């Protein structure tokens, strides 16, 4: 038996030990490969998709690759942790440090090679599925047919062989061998509870509260400036929560004898504190990764819903026509009749309203003043309320504020100025309302009678709007919109067509975002799985020895359940809270209610986690029971 044979046989004949590490490596390869299949699809390379999206995909690929590196590194080191005793034994027989490093290196190369091949093969099986999903999420005209992804295979294979090689070198170098006795007693000795300091625990709470407070307090564009400091503060706070506060709480619980010595609490808590150093790190990592996943997906989903629903709300009319400033009345009439004929061509039934917009001189500048009856004619198309200003009263109407369109509050400015009637009466505006009736920066609405006394306008403009009747398909509206946009360029707008265009541009971003989010979330799940199964043998031995002195099945179930539940839910609950705060801040930024979207995204993640918990618990309990009873 040469040393190489020894290293290889060590892996091949000890599959069970290596299988978890192998699977997680394979999973990583698979994720990268599926993404590569998508990214290298021939439909993209012929220039049908714009350059920015391709760049975005390259960046996403990079992120997945870097993430894979850390993920494999983490799996690797947790795997090596569980083999301390084995290394101790080898060293006792006289294996040199160099030989052990060599062994780890060879093992890794072997596992990495097969994981890469396995990941690519499994990825191929799922290739059609991912392309179908992509096709539906992305609104692209070409269909993404299945193809044999030679390029993707080559890229994945080379990238991961390089990655595994680097990690093997890296790991075999950081495998610092401590005293032999530490290795041999490795599994018995606690790595020590992290020290819990009261001050740091309080600091953790303060940091989190401060972070949350700031995130919830800021509005509009402030959110952007507050974002980085809040993220830093909350991340730090999260770290302290898991390394300090949780330890502090467990210590308090442990020192409370009547709680700690009650039934199975002793088994549960002593175990938690025993592993707290490892657990705290895992918890922190899982919490942060999940937060990123939740927030990214929530934000993208919310953003899309904001773009679509928000535009639909701020654009109450199906079609809108606004002529150029110096267009003559003839040009305008021509345009309007052209629009009407296009609508007829496409069988779109729509009601039309037109309004002459007159600008008058005010105390500060020229402003649009609208007759109440005109305003109310338009209001009939929207969900806004009618306005009935009294005689000699003016109401300021300003557009609904949001961060995206960058409209500042023009209402205040209008409130400060005033205008005169012909008879010299000065009219001060009485109050501001927000509405999206006219696509204008802000204007006054006055009583019809008052309007007659305004004198001659400085300049005038027109606005013509159409509202499609209910029950027409989006396709019709979009097609008509497309023609309008093309033929009456820059003057006619169609909401539905605009949305279609947005969805088309947004699709790839959403897809990539979802993809990365899900990758993060799933890896967070496998971190937990690792944490759990690294200690499985230890747990089995523990439960078996307790069972010998008498432990009922229900007690075993209870302890194991609580243990897994804490492991699975404490980081996720933290992540869910982080995520909901982040999404609330986001909704403040856009001034758009994201409650439903956030609840949907966070709820589905919570649900997935619960299902994952149930599955893992089932297998874990089965494993432990088989060993114990």
């Amino acid at each position, binding site marked *: 038996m040469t040393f190489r044979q020894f290293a290889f046989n060590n892996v091949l004949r000890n599959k069970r030990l290596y299988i978890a590490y192998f699977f997680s490596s394979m999973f990583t390869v698979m994720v990268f490969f599926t993404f590569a299949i998508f990214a290298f699809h021939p439909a993209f390379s012929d220039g049908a998709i714009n350059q920015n999206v391709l760049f975005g995909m390259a960046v996403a690929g990079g992120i997945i690759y870097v993430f894979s590196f850390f993920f494999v590194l983490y799996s690797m080191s947790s795997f090596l942790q569980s083999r301390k005793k084995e290394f101790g034994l080898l060293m006792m027989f006289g294996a040199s440090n160099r030989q052990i490093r060599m062994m780890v290196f060879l093992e890794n190369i072997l596992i990495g090679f097969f994981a890469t091949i396995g990941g690519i093969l499994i990825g191929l099986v799922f290739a059609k599925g991912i392309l179908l999903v992509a096709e539906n999420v992305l609104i692209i005209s070409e269909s993404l047919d299945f193809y044999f992804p030679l390029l993707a295979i080559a890229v994945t294979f080379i990238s991961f062989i390089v990655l595994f090689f680097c990690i093997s070198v890296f790991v075999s170098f950081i495998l610092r061998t401590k005293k032999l006795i530490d290795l041999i007693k490795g599994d018995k*000795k606690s790595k020590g509870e992290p020290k819990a300091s009261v001050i740091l625990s309080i600091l953790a709470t303060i940091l989190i509260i401060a972070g949350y407070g700031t995130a919830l307090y800021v509005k509009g564009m402030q959110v952007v400036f507050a974002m980085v400091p809040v993220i830093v503060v909350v991340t730090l706070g999260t770290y302290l929560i898991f390394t300090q506060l949780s330890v502090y709480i467990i210590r308090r619980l442990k020192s409370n004898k009547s709680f700690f010595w009650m039934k199975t609490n002793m088994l549960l808590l002593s175990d938690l504190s025993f592993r707290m150093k490892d657990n705290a790190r895992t918890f922190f990592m899982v919490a942060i990764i999940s937060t990123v996943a939740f927030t990214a997906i929530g934000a993208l989903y919310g953003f899309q819903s904001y773009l679509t629903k928000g535009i639909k709300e701020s654009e109450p009319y199906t079609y809108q026509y606004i002529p150029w400033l110096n267009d003559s009345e003839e040009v305008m009439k021509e345009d309007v009749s052209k629009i009407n004929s296009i609508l007829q061509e496409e069988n779109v039934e729509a009601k039309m309203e037109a309004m002459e917009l007159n600008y008058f001189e005010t105390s500060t500048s020229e402003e649009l003043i609208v007759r109440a009856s005109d305003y109310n004619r338009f209001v009939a198309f929207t969900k806004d309320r009618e306005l009935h200003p009294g005689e000699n009263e003016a109401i300021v109407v300003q557009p609904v504020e949001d961060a995206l369109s960058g409209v500042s509050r023009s209402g205040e400015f209008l409130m400060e100025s005033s205008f005169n009637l012909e008879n010299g009466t000065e009219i001060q505006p009485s109050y501001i309302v927000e509405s999206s009736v006219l696509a204008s920066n802000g204007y006054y609405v006055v009583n019809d009678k008052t309007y007659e006394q305004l004198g001659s306008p400085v300049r005038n403009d027109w606005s013509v709007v159409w509202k499609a009747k209910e029950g027409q398909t989006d396709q019709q509206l979009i097609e008509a919109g497309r023609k309008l946009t093309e033929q009456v360029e820059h003057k006619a707008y169609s909401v539905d067509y605009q949305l279609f265009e947005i969805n088309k541009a947004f699709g790839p971003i959403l897809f990539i975002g979802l993809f990365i989010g899900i990758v993060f979330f799933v890896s967070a799940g496998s971190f937990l799985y690792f944490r759990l199964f690294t200690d499985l043998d230890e747990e089995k031995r*523990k439960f078996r020895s307790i069972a*010998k002195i*008498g432990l009922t099945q229900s007690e075993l179930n209870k302890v194991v359940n609580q243990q897994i539940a804490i492991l699975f839910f404490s980081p996720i609950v933290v992540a869910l809270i982080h995520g909901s705060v982040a999404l609330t801040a986001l909704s403040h930024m856009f001034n758009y209610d994201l409650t439903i979207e956030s609840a949907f995204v966070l709820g589905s993640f919570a649900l997935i986690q619960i299902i994952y918990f149930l599955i893992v618990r089932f297998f874990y309990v089965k494993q432990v029971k088989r060993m114990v009873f």
Partner: protein
Amino acid sequence: MLKLTKVSKVYEGKVAFRALTDIDLEIEKGEFVTIMGPSGSGKTTLLNIISTNDAPTTGKVEIEGENPHKLKKNDLAKFRRNELGFIFQDFNLMHTLTVEENIVLPLTLDGARVKEMKEKAHTIAESLGILSIMNNRTYEISGGQAQRVAIARAMIHDPKLLLADEPTGNLDSKASKDVMKMLVSINEKEKTSLLMVTHDPQAASYSDRVVFIRDGKLHSEIHRGESRQAFFQKIIDMLSLMGGDGNDFSSIRV
């Protein structure tokens, strides 16, 4: 208090293996019995059956007139916890717990009151001389101490029957002697019945009666007379008669 009638154990497999054949054994209340025999004679199988960790293929086990093998799994766990005490060769202590916590574990699982547990642990630790290490972790104590902790854990709920599987197997002769003396004093003071499986004639000589088994069958038994020294010699003789060489067991050791 413990009665075995015609207990047999067959391990199923490609080749069925008969580990125990028609064992009849009775232990009185307060008696200290040792089971001895060469490797593979079925000692540990027998102990596993008595300790309810394993079920006999045929035959009956009665502990104070009750057959524990008829109990449901959960009741069986409770039975073990309340009626039996265990001492293992490898101590079987939880290394995530301190010594004191290890001792009170059976009571804790039963939901006893903290004050009561503390008192009991204190009393028993004092009598076993491990008070000074109560707050240590299990990897910080020596083997002899660990076995004493295990004894304390086994005794804390005053079991009817104490089962010991090679309790001195991992200990040096000094620690073995201490542990055996403690078992004897527990046996005498608390009137706890004691059943021990061992290879060590030295340890066996502390008991009232030694039962020898060989190839899964009862071979013979000898009772202790007045002198432990003479009893020890008889055990050695019996062991050499059963197959080993007399020289294997040096009588000079005592």
